[in-house]
């Protein structure tokens, strides 16, 4: 295996092991854990090596089948995609420890199917990150979606209905994206992103270009659940099996945001997307509403997992707004927030998975006094909550700081106000839970007080990734400087 192929093996190894898991995991269940963990660890190591090479030697351009672009499919690993690859493999590996436990409990007998879909989803996400071909992106988008439909529908009760709504909305999104690509193809005759970026500004076809951009962006917005196209997300993510939630919730929306950044920067060039002032203004106002809507809806929820899904909607608003601020600070903040939000969401969902594993429910009532039963889990949850609020030196603070700076630079005070307001709402939100978890048993009377005395911590398989993620929140927060200087500043285009 020559080193030039390494970044492809990052996604091929999980794919191949998915086939093995499916074939042999049905009869020998003890094979599943080593295969999943082994392939995901290989992915992580490979991604780190690739990132080192990209940072030292510059962007890798790879042509599948040795056909020169635009005739063949090109894969590009620039510093941003290398960073995203590392992020995806870290999250997938950490989530898989917890999933292995919770799937054993929730879906006995179906582990092989679950982890086949899980590994293919990870492979699809890696593929999405590296591809530089507009149509290939559609195929991979559908791979990640189909696996997610399956994973969500494996849940109990309402999960099937939520999954069906997700299928309908997801297909509309993918079809809109495909229509946009079709329009681009008619205009330019090519599907390679860099080639499109080269040809598109030379064309004299403003109406068709605008339509194509609009459809591609709306398609991606549906996939990332940007307000008001978010309706499928809360049900789908909160009713999925816990093991699926820990992987899907941190990654799917963030990778789609990354794709939007990628499409805007390398396929359409910012000059074409940000031409109309009223469009950017409209998107930023929508993003501000999304942030406020997500935060307010989160306040009204009675279930912790459902509350977190509304926070995801608010976070999508942060990132889309940050990109459409169209200045260096906004873009930096948005890209940094992709990384941070993936880790914060992972931390919170891992904590939720641990609680569900022990007591089966995360409704707010059942969280009373949980601090005494599961101290380590709740300590990590608190750290995740602090990062979500944006307390320094956790990572959540730095990306929010950049976003606020970007809002001030661009004179978009509505965005700044929404950001600050949502941070305040998050304070209320999380401190209510932490208070409930710590003091809740005192107010509730004898029944719960008795239960709270027993320490009943989650198994180590779920605790270790949780603790590692909580530590990572600080590590990433403290390494914001190098991250911004070495990686993110490279992708900010010159005109910003």
């Amino acid at each position, binding site marked *: 295996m020559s080193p030039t192929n390494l970044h492809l093996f990052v996604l091929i190894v999980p*794919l191949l092991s998915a086939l093995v898991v*499916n074939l042999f995991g049905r009869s020998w269940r003890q094979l599943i854990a080593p295969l999943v963990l082994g392939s995901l660890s290989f992915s992580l190591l490979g991604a780190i090596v690739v990132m080192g090479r990209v940072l030292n030697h510059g962007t890798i351009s790879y042509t*599948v*089948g040795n*056909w020169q672009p*635009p*005739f*063949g*499919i090109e894969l590009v690993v620039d510093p941003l995609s290398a960073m995203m690859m590392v992020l995806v493999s870290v999250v997938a590996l950490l989530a898989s420890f917890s999933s292995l436990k919770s799937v054993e409990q929730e*879906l*006995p*007998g*179906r582990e092989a*199917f*679950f982890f*086949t*879909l899980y590994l*293919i989803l990870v*492979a*699809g996400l890696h*593929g999405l990150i590296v591809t530089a*071909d507009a*149509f*290939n992106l559609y*195929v*991979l988008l*559908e*791979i990640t979606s*189909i*696996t997610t*439909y*399956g994973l969500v*529908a*494996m849940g109990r009760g309402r999960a*099937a209905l939520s*999954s069906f709504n997700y299928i309908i909305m997801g297909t509309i999104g993918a079809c809109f994206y495909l*229509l946009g690509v079709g*329009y681009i*193809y*008619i*205009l*330019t*005759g*090519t599907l390679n992103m860099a080639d499109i970026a080269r*040809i598109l500004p030379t064309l*004299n*076809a*403003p*109406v*068709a*270009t*605008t*339509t*194509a951009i*609009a*459809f591609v962006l709306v398609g991606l917005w549906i996939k990332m659940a940007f307000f008001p196209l978010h309706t499928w997300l809360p049900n789908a993510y909160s009713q999925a099996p816990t093991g699926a939630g820990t992987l899907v919730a941190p990654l799917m929306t963030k990778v789609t945001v990354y794709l939007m950044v990628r499409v805007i920067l390398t396929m359409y060039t910012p000059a074409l997307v940000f031409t109309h002032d009223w469009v950017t203004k409209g998107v930023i106002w929508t993003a501000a509403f999304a942030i406020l809507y997500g935060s307010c809806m989160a306040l009204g929820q009675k279930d912790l997992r459902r509350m977190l899904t509304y926070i995801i909607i608010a976070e999508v608003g942060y990132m889309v707004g940050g990109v459409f601020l169209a200045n260096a600070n906004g873009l930096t903040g948005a890209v940094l927030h992709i990384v941070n939000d993936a880790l914060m969401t992972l931390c919170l969902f891992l904590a939720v998975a641990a609680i569900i594993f022990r007591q089966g429910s995360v409704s707010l009532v059942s969280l009373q006094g949980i601090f005494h039963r599961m101290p380590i889990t709740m300590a990590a949850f608190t750290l995740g909550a602090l990062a979500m609020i944006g307390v320094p030196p956790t990572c959540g603070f730095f990306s929010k700081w950049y976003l606020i700076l970007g809002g001030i630079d661009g004179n978009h005070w509505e965005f700044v106000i929404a950001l600050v307001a949502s941070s305040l709402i998050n304070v209320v939100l999380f401190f209510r839970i932490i208070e409930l978890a710590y003091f809740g048993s005192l107010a509730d009377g004898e029944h719960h007080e008795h239960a709270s005395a027993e320490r009943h911590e989650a198994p180590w398989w779920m605790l270790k990734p949780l603790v590692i993620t909580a530590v990572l929140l600080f590590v990433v927060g403290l390494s914001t400087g190098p991250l911004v200087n070495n990686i993110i500043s490279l992708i900010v285009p010159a005109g910003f």
Partner: protein
Amino acid sequence: MKSLALFATLVTGALLLFGTKDFPAWGDPQSPASTYLSPVYIEQAVAQTHVPNIVTAVLGDYRGYDTMFETVVIYCAGIAVLSVLSRNRKDEE
């Protein structure tokens, strides 16, 4: 709800039709789609792959990476259907 759906449908359709304003006429041999990549495929594919059916050549080789994921998509569909419809071991008992 229905009127909202109708409105959304009409807006989408109108936008898509409006976008075709800049397109070349249907079947125009001089359109970018027919002059940029496709002549190269048609003229070079046989020399480069020895496959006279150019659709197969492009599907299997030039865009083989797409086709690989197409196979994975349908594989995923099978596994997803199996996993959605199969029941837990406990429920069966």
